[in-house]
C-alpha cells in the first residue's frame, strides 16, 4: 500500500464518519455503554487486587521473646534472622517500646496502665518477609524455624486469617477471571455487531469499490481506522461515566481508588484495539459472504 493511498484512506475514514454521523453516533453510544461495563469490571478487579496486595504488603510476623533472654543473645538472634533468605526487614521492639506503643493505641484510656507496677509485655521481633515468601506454606515453614530458637515464647502471624485470606483470594481470582473472559468476549461481540451496522449501511459502496478494482485491504483499512477511532472516543466516554460512578461510590466506600493514569491509558489503548478488531472481524465476515 502506497503512502498516498494510506493518507487518502485515513482522510477517507474521517470523511465517512462525518458523512454517516447517525450510524457513527449510534455505534459510539453502544460501544460506550459496553465499555462502561468492562471498565466497571476492571475497576472493581483493580481495587480488589490492590486491597489484596496491600494486605500482603502489611503482613508481619511477630516473634515474642522470653524476658529471661540476654541482650547479647537477642542481638545474635537479630543478626541470624536478618541473614535468613526469606527476610526483608527485622525490627526489634523492646519491652519498653512495646508498652509505649500499647499506650498510644489505648489513647485516653492509657491511665489504666499506670496501675501496673511491672511491664507485662514481652520484647519481640517484627519481621517483614520478602514478597516471594509470603505464601501460606512458606510462612509456616519460616515460623517453625524461628519458633525453634531457644527462648522464643511464641510466633504469631495470623494463621487463621492467612488461611481464610488465601482461599478467598483464590476463589476471587477464579470468579474474576471467569467474569473477565465473559465481559471481554461480549464486549468484542457487541462492538463487532455495532460495526456491522455501519458496514451493512455501506454495503452498496463496498460492492462498487470491489467492482472498480479495490483490494480487500483498501476496503478494510478505513473501517479499521474508524473502529479504532470509535473505540478510542467510546472509551473516553466510558471513562468519564465511570468516574462519575466512582465519585458516588467513594462516598460509601472511601477506600476505593480510581485507575492510575497509566491504567486509564492502557484501558483506552485496549479499547482502540477492541474497536479495530471488531471492525476487522465484522468486515471479514461480510467480505467473504
Amino acid at each position: 500500500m502506497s503512502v498516498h493511498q494510506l493518507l487518502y484512506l485515513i482522510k477517507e475514514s474521517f470523511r465517512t464518519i462525518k458523512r454517516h454521523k447517525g450510524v457513527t453516533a449510534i455505534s459510539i453510544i453502544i460501544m460506550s455503554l459496553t465499555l462502561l461495563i468492562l471498565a466497571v469490571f476492571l475497576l472493581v478487579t483493580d481495587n480488589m487486587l490492590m486491597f489484596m496486595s496491600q494486605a500482603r504488603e502489611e503482613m508481619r510476623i511477630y516473634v515474642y521473646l522470653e524476658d529471661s533472654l540476654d541482650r547479647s543473645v537477642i542481638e545474635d538472634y537479630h543478626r541470624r534472622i536478618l541473614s535468613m533468605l526469606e527476610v526483608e526487614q527485622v525490627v526489634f521492639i523492646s519491652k519498653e517500646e512495646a508498652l509505649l506503643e500499647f499506650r498510644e493505641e489505648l489513647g485516653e484510656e492509657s491511665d489504666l496502665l499506670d496501675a501496673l507496677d511491672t511491664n507485662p509485655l514481652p520484647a519481640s521481633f517484627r519481621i517483614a518477609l520478602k514478597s516471594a515468601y509470603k505464601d501460606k506454606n512458606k510462612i509456616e515453614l519460616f515460623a517453625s524455624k524461628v519458633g525453634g530458637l531457644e527462648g522464643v515464647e511464641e510466633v504469631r502471624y495470623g494463621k487463621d486469617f492467612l488461611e481464610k485470606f488465601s482461599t478467598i483470594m483464590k476463589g476471587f481470582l477464579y470468579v474474576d477471571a471467569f467474569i473477565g473472559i465473559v465481559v471481554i468476549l461480549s464486549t468484542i461481540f457487541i462492538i463487532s455487531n455495532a460495526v456491522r451496522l455501519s458496514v451493512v449501511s455501506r454495503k452498496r459502496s463496498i460492492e462498487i469499490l470491489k467492482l472498480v478494482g479495490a483490494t480487500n485491504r483498501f476496503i478494510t483499512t478505513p473501517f479499521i481506522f474508524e473502529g479504532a477511532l470509535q473505540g478510542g472516543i467510546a472509551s473516553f466516554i466510558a471513562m468519564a461515566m465511570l468516574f462519575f460512578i466512582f465519585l458516588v461510590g467513594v462516598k460509601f466506600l472511601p477506600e476505593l481508588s480510581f485507575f492510575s493514569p497509566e491504567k486509564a491509558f492502557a484501558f483506552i489503548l485496549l479499547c482502540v484495539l477492541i474497536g479495530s478488531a471488531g471492525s476487522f472481524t465484522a468486515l471479514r465476515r461480510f467480505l467473504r459472504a
Partner: protein
Amino acid sequence: MEERNVIGVYHLTKKYGDQYALKDVNLQVGNGEFVFLVGPSGAGKSTLLRLIYMDEFPTDGQVVAGSFVSTTVDRKKIPYLRRKIGVIFQDFKLLEDRDVFENVAIAMRVTGEKSYEIKKLVIHILTQVGLYHKRNDLPRKLSGGEQQRVAIARAIVNRPAILLADEPTGNLDPDVTEEILRLLFRINSGGTAVLMATHNLSLVENFGQRIVHLKDGIIHEDRLTGLGGNPSDKLSEYRWNRKRLDKQETTGELR
C-alpha cells in the same frame, strides 16, 4: 490469433438453479474492436458481461479477459483485472455520497496512484465528457445522461484495453443517446476494445459495426453490418435519419 483477442469466451454456460442464463456461448473480441451485443431483456447480456469482469464464474466453459483466465484465476488477483477492464454498469453504480470528481477518481485511488496524477487525469477526462463544471456535484443532482457520463469517465480513466458497456443508452433521450454513442466511438478510436450491450437493435444496426445477437442465452447471429468504416460518419447519418423520422411523426408530412 489468440493474442490479438482481448476477450475470449469459450463454450460458456451459466446456470442459475436449473435455469440457463447462457448456453454454450462462444465469442472473441479483438484488440481495438467495437462489438454490439444485442438481445431482448433477459437474453443474458448482463450475465455475459458479469462473467467477463469476473463478478461471477462459469458453470461450464471458460472466459479469458486480457491475461486473466476464469478457470485458473486467483480470486485475490481479481481487483487487478477490474483495473484493466472499464465497466459501465446498467444501473451506473455511482457512489451516492461522493461528488463527481471522487466518483471518477476512485478508480485511480484503488490503484495507489499519486494524488496530483489523479487530479490531472480526472480533470482531463471530466472535460472530455463535458462534466468539468459539475465536478463538485453529488450524483443525485445530475440528470440521467450526466450520471451515465460520470460512469463512462470512471470506466475509462485508467485507460483500459477493454470497455464493457451495459445498456449505456438505456433510459436516455435520443440526443443524449447520440452523445453517449459518440463518446464510445471516440474511446474506441483510441484503441480500446468496446463491447456494448443493448436491447435496441434499430439503434445500432446502421453503424457498420459487428453485431452479436443473443437470445435466451444463445448466440443466434454474429455479423458485420454494412461495410465497417468509421462509425462517427454513420452517427451523422443516424442523426439525419432520426430528424427525418421525428418530423414524420410530428407533422405526418411524408405519409
